[in-house]
């Protein structure tokens, strides 16, 4: 690939339980203390979003009212990313900023759901009752606050990003493919400036309900990702928003952007998840970037969700690489769609600093050598395997 078509990270917008912005995350990871809400949805611990002044990135209250929390979190993080890249409010650049959002969606009005479910069994005509209640009680704007592509829509409205707007759906893979497609388009000259990312609101009963149906959630007191595995594993979800500004080297240099790191390589794939399938995908991805990898100066930022079998297989694979590793979800919680962008963000921060943050739990080794590269894994809790190599720019 021509050097001027390298994909560089020039902006990070990250909000999580650890706070907002790269500095807050850097500080929190130096002296890590988990931020956990064990009570609100007991027995399911989760990582709550740090308090944010939404007005700072979404100045119009009218806009905020049109969004459910997941959209507010994402729109806020997108604003931070644009600010961090120095392009916020630059209409000329934003008019050709290409956006790829990885989104879930579907936040519900729990009170309406509960009232309807409680009354339905005794309603004389349940179907008519359901129609009547939905007609009467759904807020017209709620639909737009649920639609997956309306996070992107809100970012266009609030921040003026209008070059293009695509929303990917598909849990962790959606976030990883957003990064991959942005890098591929930059390499091929199909765009110079990308805003990619997503958001997750874990503090919602219907979100927990979905993963609990699959028995994917950790139900004991908080424990870090690797430590959980001895007791059967499980996910601790986290509220989080993460957007990255990814830019061609030529474009970044021409506008004098501050460069944090490069995404030197990325691969994504899928498999049926028979034992060994995911590791085989990861091994192929690693082999494809082997020539760029310097094991002596590298670490792994793992996107492991904590879900049992997958996390165990990933850990075995990573142990085979033999570099220090950190599980991002131990600190941030598992955030589904934005989990891979967020792990890339942590990798970029560490690479920009030239050192890896301390272990988050005893199962992680310290690293004293300078850090020049980080491998980032994104194995979905159900499907999808991604691997990226983040390097010094």
């Amino acid at each position: 690939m021509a050097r001027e078509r390298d994909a560089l990270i020039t902006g990070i917008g990250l909000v999580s339980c650890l706070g907002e912005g790269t500095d807050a995350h850097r500080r929190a990871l130096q002296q890590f203390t988990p931020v956990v809400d064990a009570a609100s949805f007991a027995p399911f611990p989760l990582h709550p979003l740090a308090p944010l002044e939404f007005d700072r990135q979404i100045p119009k209250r009218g806009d905020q009212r049109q969004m459910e929390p997941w959209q507010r979190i994402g729109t806020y993080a997108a604003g931070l990313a644009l600010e961090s890249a120095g392009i916020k409010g630059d209409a000329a650049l934003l008019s050709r900023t290409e956006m790829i959002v990885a989104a879930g969606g579907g936040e519900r009005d729990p009170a309406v759901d509960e009232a309807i479910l409680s009354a339905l069994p005794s309603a004389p005509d349940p179907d008519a009752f359901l129609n009547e209640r939905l007609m009467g009680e759904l807020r017209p704007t709620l639909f737009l606050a649920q639609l997956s592509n309306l996070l992107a829509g809100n970012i266009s409205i609030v921040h003026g990003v209008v070059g293009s707007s695509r929303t990917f759906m598909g849990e962790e893979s959606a976030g990883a493919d957003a990064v991959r497609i942005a890098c591929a388009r930059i390499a091929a000259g199909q765009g110079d400036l990308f805003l990619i990312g997503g958001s997750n609101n874990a503090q919602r009963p219907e979100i927990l309900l979905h993963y609990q149906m699959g028995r994917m959630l950790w139900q004991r007191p908080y424990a870090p990702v690797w430590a959980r595995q001895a007791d059967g594993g499980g996910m601790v979800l986290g509220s989080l928003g993460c957007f990255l500004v990814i830019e061609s080297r030529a474009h970044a240099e021409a506008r004098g952007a501050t460069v944090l790191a490069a995404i030197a390589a990325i691969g994504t794939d899928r498999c049926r998840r028979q034992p060994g399938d995911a590791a085989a995908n990861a091994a192929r991805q690693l082999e494809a970037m082997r020539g760029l990898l310097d094991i002596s100066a590298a670490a792994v930022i793992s996107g492991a969700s904590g879900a049992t079998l997958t996390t165990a297989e990933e850990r075995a694979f990573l142990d085979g690489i033999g570099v220090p590793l950190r599980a991002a979800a131990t600190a941030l919680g598992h955030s589904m769609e934005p989990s891979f962008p967020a792990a890339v963000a942590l990798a970029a921060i560490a690479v920009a600093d030239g050192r890896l943050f301390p272990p988050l739990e005893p199962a992680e080794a310290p690293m004293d050598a300078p850090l020049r590269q980080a491998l980032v894994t994104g194995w979905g809790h159900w499907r999808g395997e991604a691997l990226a190599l983040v390097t010094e720019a």
Partner: protein
Amino acid sequence: MAAELDHAGRPVVVVTGLGMLTSLGQGVAENWRRLTAGESGIRRISRFPVTGLRTTIAATVDYLPLAAPSSAALSQVMADLAAQEAIVAAGLPVDDFPGPLLLALAPVEMEWPQRQAIAAACGTGPVTYADLLRTAGSGTFTRYYERFLFGSVAEALADRFGTKGSPIGTSTACASGATALQLGLEAIRRGETGAALCIGTDGSVNPEALIRFSLLSALSTRNDPPAAAARPFSKDRDGFVMAEGAAALVLESLAHAQARGAEILGVLEGCGERADSFHRTRSSPDGKPIIACMAEAIADAGLSPDDIGYINAHGTGTPENDKMEWLGVSAVFGARGSSLPISSNKSMIGHTLSAAGAIEAAFTVLTLREGLLPPTINYETPDPALPVDCVPNIARPLRVTHALSNSFGFGGQNVSLVFGAVPA
């Protein structure tokens, strides 16, 4: 055909397989026959009781048996059938597709029957989410968990057709189908793959989805007779009609298609896209994003507006959409706008939402191939503000070389595609 590279030095991208099903029936041939005969697939909803609803019609796909009905399940089955038809037509193996899957679909979500089933398992009396959470982990509901993962439909299709790499599920509201094609076009132009399987599917007609659109006042309430409800470009248009369906298009680089001796059905010559920052459900009053989107698609194809001979309109039949689409067309095509044929498939098959961009792209390919423009039916009361040639009511034989297909959606989504006929 001539050169393997286009005017910009990129691989020429061709269509080598089509598959489709809609309320008009299953298969490309049946759909084309009925569409060009001006038949409507819109009917009274029978899937669920419509008591108390303002809109009681839709263009549903009711002829496919589902073991466990849900919008996600129907979307998957329709996508599966459309993809199968397209891949077989392309002469490719049905279980080893040589490229990625790009799938447009509606956001996946659990629906009321499943929510009620979990509530029933909680016992009697009032139900809270805390109760649902306590009950959900019994293992009985694992099937719901998998079904309602956002990635579940794309994963199942990738597995079934052996597509390569990570499948992409995309949702850009009513532009989704066009976005899937755009993603495929870009991947082939990058040289990443020689082929791409692009699908749009939508099986969203359920009570809550219908009510949501109804509460936004987006739907026609002209319930009787159903076939007369969708009236794009008419003065008395009053909204769109929800619809279901799927289409699959096999895209290949010309080189890839020629190397295996595939029949070429059409050329995907260009795409344009522009997001709108004006409003969540309305276009910028000046139409700039729509205008830029169409203009960019035409330029991307290496053409000028004079080269476009037909437009497959987004044409939803809402007062707002048709007005804005005409504004865009008149700006891009100038005085020629009024004599340029522009018709709306939605007058017959309704608005297939996430699938619309793909279904209408497939119809555009057929339009170029067959030399026959599908009509806009129900065009009885022209809107003086929209002086369009909408191919009123009866299909029109006309050989066209280049056609534009528009898709616009909530959230400021605008995508236009340019298709070309196969050079003789």
